[in-house]
């Protein structure tokens, strides 16, 4: 495969009747990279994933996965190297966890002996031979994840992998993603909100009503959106008065001075502040949170529904 992208979308559009689910999205994900698709419900994440999996075809544009069109019948042979965790999957209650994984492993032509290691990997080994009806929600989600890892996939697609998981299992998901990446797999995960993502995600694609609203690393997204950092300076009344004289027109309240400045100006601003030699008691610097970045990028989401 070399350096060719595992997933390549060129101006992909998907329409359902008059509704446009995905609108002109272009994207490339390289081997060993983890990309997160982020967006509200109905932003087009699932539709995009289904096109990558070849479950549906695009109305316009081109989809290539591992160099092939996923709708091609020859693509079927590549499917044993794709692991997929659907957003919501209810495995048959009357089967055991092991029977369920054996079924999918047989379909993929993967080794059944390797399943024990997978059960250990998601902390389900003790419950592997129990019926799924006895599993908790988190255990079912972990079984789904183990299912996606069958046959050490080259492409791992996880739709909302951390929903319903406790923080420890959630960290385990990200550590599994990390291991898969290290082994050279491409990972595509989807999530409701940026705040849920771990720093181990390489890049984020934010979808908003079918459009690609932003694409880049989390740090890049912070920068490009241009949300200002909030700086709060505490000091005596006299110091604040001197600040007010120097920086006219800023907010002064409750014994603190509030400034906001863009990420690129932040350092210069702080240096200038220090060079004023005004005695201060404290400085708080608040960078925009991921949630603010996300909301800023997806605002106007509900306008069409009114």
């Amino acid at each position: 495969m070399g350096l060719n992208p595992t997933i390549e979308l060129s101006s992909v559009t998907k329409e359902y009747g008059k509704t446009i689910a995905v609108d002109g999205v272009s994207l490339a994900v390289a081997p060993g990279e983890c990309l997160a698709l982020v967006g509200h419900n109905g932003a087009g994440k699932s539709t995009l994933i289904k096109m990558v999996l070849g479950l549906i075809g695009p109305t316009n544009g081109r989809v290539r996965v591992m160099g092939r069109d996923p709708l091609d019948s020859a693509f079927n042979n590549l499917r044993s190297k794709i692991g997929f965790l659907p957003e919501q999957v209810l495995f048959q209650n009357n089967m055991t966890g092991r029977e369920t994984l054996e079924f999918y492993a047989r379909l993929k032509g993967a080794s059944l002996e390797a399943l024990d290691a997978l059960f250990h990997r998601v902390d389900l080994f003790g419950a592997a031979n129990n019926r799924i009806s006895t599993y908790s929600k988190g255990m079912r989600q972990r079984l789904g994840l183990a299912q996606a890892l069958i046959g050490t996939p080259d492409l791992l697609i996880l739709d909302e992998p951390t929903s319903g998981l406790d923080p420890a299992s959630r960290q385990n998901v990200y550590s599994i993603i990390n291991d898969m990446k290290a082994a050279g797999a491409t990972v595509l995960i989807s999530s409701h909100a940026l705040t849920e993502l771990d720093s181990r995600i390489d890049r984020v694609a934010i979808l908003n009503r079918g459009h690609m609203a932003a694409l880049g690393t989390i740090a890049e997204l912070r920068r490009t959106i241009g949300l200002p950092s909030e700086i709060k300076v505490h000091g005596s009344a006299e110091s604040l008065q001197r600040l007010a004289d120097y920086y006219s027109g800023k907010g002064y309240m409750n014994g603190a001075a509030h400034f906001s400045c863009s990420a690129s100006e932040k350092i210069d601003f702080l240096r200038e502040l220090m060079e004023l030699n005004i005695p201060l008691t404290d400085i708080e610097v608040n960078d925009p949170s991921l949630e603010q970045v996300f909301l800023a990028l997806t605002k106007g989401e509900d306008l069409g529904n009114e």
Partner: protein
Amino acid sequence: MNRLWTLITKEARDGLRNRWVVMITLVMTGLALILSFLGSAPTGTTSVSPLAVTVVSLSSLSIFFIPLIALLLAYDSVVGEAERGTLTLLLTHPVSRTEVILGKFIGHLFLLAIAIVIGYGVAGVTISFTGEGGFAGQEWDSFLRLLLSSILLGAIFLSIGYVISTWVSERGMAAALAIGIWLLFVLLYDMGLLALLAADGEGALSGGLVKWLMLANPTDSYRMFNLTSSNATALLSGMAGLSVEHRASDTSLILIMLSWVVAPLVIACMIFRKRQL
């Protein structure tokens, strides 16, 4: 081939684990036994084989019961998996949609065949031992025809069930359609034909046309196949009076039934291939 086998064994195991398949086998055995004993009681010392009587009663039972079970097995198979989310997952594996339908069909047919062979087999063997004429003196030919054609009848309604299941997007809708199809083929169709015949006092409809109209319904083909299978069954079921012109050959009956298996199955595969997930 390996993957198809995996799909088949999963369906079969699911069915065996669902208590209701076991229940259906028990119910069929019970009903078959009751009908057989009730049916064989009045034969007394006539020369008719008790098993021939059983064949006549069981084929009437089959016409109601087997389509119902087959539709119940099939109606949920695709739409149910779609609702649970396992269908999307399944189709991301190296399996074709045709293989999925075929796997379900063969797996379900296996379950139905078990229920039919056990249910009717127990009844047939019991009757042959307790009835007159002994084990060897029975109409085993007719009984074998009954078993095989009952499985074929099941296959027909499985196929129709998959058409429903691949076509609709909600389980409730599929269930309603399955009941409707059952009513149509088992009750309404024949009632309609009767009404047509009654209205047609002048006999404008030729015998041939009525015959083929009737045989277009697979349950009627099944009925004719079994009730005219031997002189004994024909006599018992009142079919003996049929002139040769009104009968259809075994070959054409089997062909009609087989095409009722194949055509819906092909249609189901075509709909499934176009189905949006």
